[in-house]
């Protein structure tokens, strides 16, 4: 018996197009969480100079009754300079795609460019921190590598250094409440690291997962806290391939206090989205372009208030 099946249907009739686009992976952009926002004035050159005066010594000796003037102190300072760089990328789309596609192709791509821009900014900050910040190797782990896996002791050593250097904490403490399984959270520095560290953090002595905070004050990227440090993780967290003594990947966690580093943006150029219609592409007006540009320079402001805690995995 001959049965008529769907093979008779034309290909286009056999499919429907889901109007809802699928989700696109977007990493947590954590590296500017702790940055100070600064502006480079337009028409003001290419380098922003910031200056910090060094502390004066205390005056511990009594003046006495001689009337003598004690010696003066020299005023010294450090200049912190940052040179603006410009970044950008674009896509070119033929008019036939726009005309014939059922997807809102321009809208989709402008959204993708927006994510690309923010991820670029975040990655630039990450790279600057990795290039220039003082690092401390974890050495109290037991995996036999240098650096070792992360331990409570290693985190506490960095916290102590930040405290000794008068770095101010960023996050306010969370007061304890009478809820099962929760624990109070201290005023804390923040650590910016890779999601690869999540398992080792979970196994770290004294680790309090964000779900155990007394109130839901954790950002989506926050994993939890150890002592004086709250950890924010991202899939684009910093790592250096083949950099341990045994050739393993080294993960960089930047532990920072207030005003440790800045993101300097160029006034009138912080984020430009550019659409050029096909009429600009040539005599036949065939291609549209979408683009972004921005100008920025990340810079460590005080090297004593940020440490790169280097770890391998357990």
């Amino acid at each position, binding site marked *: 018996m001959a049965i008529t099946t769907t093979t008779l249907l034309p290909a286009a009739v056999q499919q429907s197009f889901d109007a809802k686009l699928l989700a696109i992976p977007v990493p947590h952009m954590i590296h500017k969480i702790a940055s100070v926002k600064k502006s480079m004035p337009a028409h003001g050159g290419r*380098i922003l100079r910031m200056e910090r005066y060094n502390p004066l010594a205390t005056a511990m000796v009594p003046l006495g009754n001689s009337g003598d003037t004690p010696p003066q102190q020299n005023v010294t300072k450090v*200049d912190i*300079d940052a*040179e603006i760089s410009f970044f950008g990328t674009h896509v070119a789309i033929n008019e036939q795609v726009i005309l014939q596609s059922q997807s809102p192709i321009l809208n989709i791509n402008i959204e993708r460019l927006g994510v690309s821009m923010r991820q670029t900014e975040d990655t630039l900050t990450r790279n*600057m921190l990795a290039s*220039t910040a*003082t*690092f401390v*190797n974890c050495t109290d782990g037991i995996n036999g590598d240098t650096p070792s896996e992360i331990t409570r002791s290693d985190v506490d050593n960095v916290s102590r250094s930040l405290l000794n250097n008068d770095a101010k904490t960023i996050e306010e403490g969370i007061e304890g409440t009478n809820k099962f399984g929760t624990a109070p959270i201290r005023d804390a520095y923040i650590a910016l690291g890779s999601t690869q560290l999540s398992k080792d953090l979970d196994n770290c002595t004294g680790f309090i997962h964000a779900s155990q905070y007394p109130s839901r004050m954790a950002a989506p990227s926050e994993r939890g806290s150890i002592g004086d440090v709250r950890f924010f993780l991202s899939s684009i967290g910093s790592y250096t391939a083949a950099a*341990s003594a045994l050739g393993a990947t080294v993960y960089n966690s930047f532990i920072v206090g207030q005003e440790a580093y800045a993101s300097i943006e160029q006034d009138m150029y912080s984020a430009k989205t550019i659409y050029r219609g096909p009429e600009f592409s040539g005599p036949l007006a065939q291609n549209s372009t979408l683009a972004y540009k921005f100008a920025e320079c990340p810079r460590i402001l005080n090297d004593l208030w940020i440490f790169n805690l280097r770890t391998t995995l357990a």
Partner: protein
Amino acid sequence: MNTINHQGNFSSDGTDKYINIGSGVDWVHVRNLTTIASSTQWVGTEWFWQRGMTNDDAITNFHATASQIISTSTCAVGYNSVTYNGVSLIDTSLKTYGSIVASTGVSAAAPPLVATASTTGLVANKTIVRLTNMLGSTQYSGMDFTVGAVVADTTFALAHVALPVVSALAGEWRVVDYDASYYPRRRYITAISKAASAVVVTSVTNDFTVGEKVRFIVPSAFGMTEINNLVGTVTAVVQTGTTGNNTVTVNINSAAFTTFAFPLTGVSFTQAQLVPIGEDMPTALASGLSSLGGATLDKDFIGFKLGTSSTAAIALGSAGGTSGDAIKWRAGKSFEY
């Protein structure tokens, strides 16, 4: 449709030539004027590369005889039983590394020599390598070093290292293709002198500037703990890169400090570091330099590399040429590729 975006020329110094083109390129054409005018057998004269070809390849013209008669091949296929280095696209923001290569030991020479059966990709006083798994010399494992003298497929020197603990044991190294993105860069310290003005040697050729303020991070494992956390101003730099010519002099009197020494093998520690922190404007200006020389700047770029080789027979047919060759290049974009 092709557009020629850029052109230029240079005199080859016998090492890979990196050319920064912000727009990127879809094709590159290179002419070696020196070899074109010669009648030398087996010299390359022209190279053409376009997208779709593999990195380090190119279509190349060469002299198959001691005349100016042109033959054609590709760098990857080669001629005269040799393959050559052509054109590679470069994006230094992508931190890539060479393959792991085995080493068989580190000598007690000054500078120490790393024994290895292959030195492919190493350029004396320029290439950065990372040592790992250095059995018997674990204190150098995980660190980056500028390569000194290279004896082809035999040894390379750690240009800026004092005598290590001798090791006849195995280890590994790999080429670090690109330096860290942001200038000024933190560097590992391999030596600090005891002097009225301390002189510092870094494991990778330094790029500090006079007038820059730097902080010393010297953990107790390195002996000279007195200098730990001190801030000094750079008063002189030597950056030639050859052994003994990579130094940073600072205004710190270390004469009475404990001697700086590397930890012994098998000890876990944080490496000694020289960390750039800012600028001492009066010192820079007194030296007749820009007081802005230490400004933080992203040094990454895109462009292309014209490869060459320290092996003479390979350099003859490679796009980067041999020392003294006059080379002209042009590069551009294609509307489609």
